[in-house]
């Protein structure tokens, strides 16, 4: 069966800086995969390559079997939420989703209303996005990324800057999406949350995948009694 996300010997350089170095990973459908590592480890670059926003220098990246350089086909199989949700402050939440629906030839009223309801934004739907809180922006971004119900979802730091209530809401929504068979690839600094929601975790350092396993087994990669946070610190210590 085709993996939801697959990279093979992926490489990306920015001048002298190696951002991604021979990165190979595979994420099955219905899995929440956490990509963790320090700043500059190459997590965002990997997600950008997978989402077709950046070309790799070498190696391959596929999403649901579609090569990441085939951008037109990629739009149907992929939902992507960067760290800064791509929203237009001048629009209302409803308008933002309506544009997304128009581009994807979806039902502008039914599916948009459903998404607003599901992501708890129905009451704020007709307010300008510039007045939204960080949590509301993140939920709207998530609603936009999942509006066309893609089989693969890429999320860059989806929990960064959220308060505990908003964090819980986003985690619940991610669980719902994953239970429907969607593969979710999450990059995050929040190791406690990664431990909670991810089925598998890959630790990245200096562009390389150092180790990957289930969160509870990853601690054992260093020591039998080590937790995930300590494991990440030990394994990425430069």
């Amino acid at each position, binding site marked *: 069966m085709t993996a939801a996300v697959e990279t093979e010997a992926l490489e990306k350089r920015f001048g002298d800086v190696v951002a991604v170095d021979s990165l190979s990973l595979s994420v099955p459908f219905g899995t929440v995969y956490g990509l963790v590592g320090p700043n500059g480890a190459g997590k965002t670059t990997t997600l950008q390559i997978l989402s077709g926003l950046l070309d790799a220098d070498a190696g391959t990246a596929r999403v649901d079997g579609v090569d990441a350089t085939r951008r037109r086909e990629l739009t149907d199989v992929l939902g992507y939420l960067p760290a800064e949700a791509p929203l237009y402050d001048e629009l209302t939440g409803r308008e933002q989703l309506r544009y997304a629906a128009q*581009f994807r030839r979806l039902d502008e009223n039914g599916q948009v209303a459903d998404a607003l309801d599901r992501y708890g934004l129905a009451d704020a739907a007709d307010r300008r996005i510039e007045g939204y809180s960080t949590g509301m922006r993140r939920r709207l971004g998530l609603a*936009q990324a999942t509006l066309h119900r893609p089989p693969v979802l890429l999320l860059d730091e989806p929990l960064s800057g959220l308060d505990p209530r908003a964090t819980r809401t986003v985690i619940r929504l991610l669980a719902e999406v994953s239970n429907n068979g969607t593969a979710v690839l999450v990059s995050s600094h929040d190791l406690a949350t990664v431990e909670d929601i991810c089925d598998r975790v890959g630790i990245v350092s200096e562009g390389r995948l150092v180790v990957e396993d289930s969160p509870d087994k990853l601690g054992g990669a260093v020591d039998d009694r080590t937790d995930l946070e300590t494991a990440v610190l030990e394994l990425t210590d430069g």
Partner: protein
Amino acid sequence: MNRETVTDTATVARLSLLRRWRRALDNPRTLVLRVGFLAALLLYTVLGDVTRPPSEVDPERLRETIRGVAAGGWLLLAAFAAAGTPTAARSVQGSPFLLRAAGLRPTLWGTILGNYLQRIAVFGALGAATAVALLGGFDVSGRNPLLFPVLLVFFLTAELAGMAARLTVVAAGIRPGRTGKVLVGGVGVLALSVGIGEFETTVALLSRLPVAVFGDVFAAGLPTVEADRSRVAAAATGGVVGSLALALAVERLAVRSWFTGGGHGRAEAERTRVDGLLGRVGITGPTRAVVWRLWLQSRRRPLIVGLLVFPLFLVGLALVDPEGTDVPRFPLIVGLYGVWMATVSVGLNPLSSEGDTLSHLLSAPATAVVRGYVLTTVLVAAPVVVGSVLLAGALVGPAWLTVPALLLSGVVLLGVVPAAMAIGLVLPRVGPVDRAADGPLAPSKFAVVAHSVVLCLLAGPAVLGLVYADSTPAVAVYASVGVTVLAAPLVGVVSLRAATRRLDSMTLG
């Protein structure tokens, strides 16, 4: 381009226009000001005497001039297009959304279309009225049915050629740094001002360029000019074919350059480098933070344009004027302009906040913050002032004034920079700086006026003394210069203390 792509392109353009319209409505004062300005221009154009056709001009010379002006206009349009071309996917606002949802082609062409439609919406009324008045006056449209289609491809080819040129450079891996861009821009501005100054020669040269054929179409409708049919046909067919070819090239080049991620990480690397440099010369702690923040601000595009373009343009114009310039004591005036512009741009709005820096600023020791501001403003102003004065002295003259102008501008700078800081703290304009918009760090208008008055009062005696040096006793000239030389440091010291006290009170309050 299939039907879906066309629909998506239109949707991207509509989205772009809706956002701009809402932004315009958010700033009703600016909107009213712009509409008022355009309305005034419109009335002047329609009611004024600007539509009278030239009657006593040699037809051949007129055609040559129109050819040259058309080519010059085309090159200018292409240059502006090149400067504004998005060279990376992230330069297009909302690109992760648009590229993912609509795809590259609608994102590229929809954004461009949105820009054009906005220009048409803003200048539409004026343009339409001008066109109707001019065409009515010259009876051009009746004589030349090709005019409007060719006008369209004239704009289109210029825009696409500029974009293609810029994307070709980027696709070749050449990404000039800030210094390179400023140098290229500076040379461009000098060339423009020299071109305007040497109008006849420039027009003769430009009229030999291939794009000058557009001028033949514009000239063909004039009653006194005989049309060159082969060149008119070349303009029409070449324009259409060229537009299509250029559009294809732009799209391919965008695919090659938008997703390479060039320039990524440059800011972080630069920060490390500048941090190290500042540390080596003993600038540390909050002062270093303030210097870094101001260094970032000082390189915003409007500042560079304000600081460099005007003096360069003046120097260029004065250079080609056989009688020099009408501005008395040119090097000194240019130097003082540099002082004024740099302080208004950098030092006069200390409480504007880039990111969340305001709270850090207010919690740092006031002396360190003030020192950081003064130092950076001087660092930004010094090269501008020195460069402008040297250029003005060497190329325009009088050469003997170069050194006195440098010294006087320097002395005035030392007084005006702390004064600007103090004024900016008394008359602040607090607000976040929109980094994405690369907009100006506009200080309060009252602060600008107060600062200008201080500059005039400080520099005034020396300027007046030197302007009237020929008709004034030498003692009076020395005395007037002496007043400025003595008063500037005094104002500087007093302002430094005032600024520190003010900032301290804000920290404590």
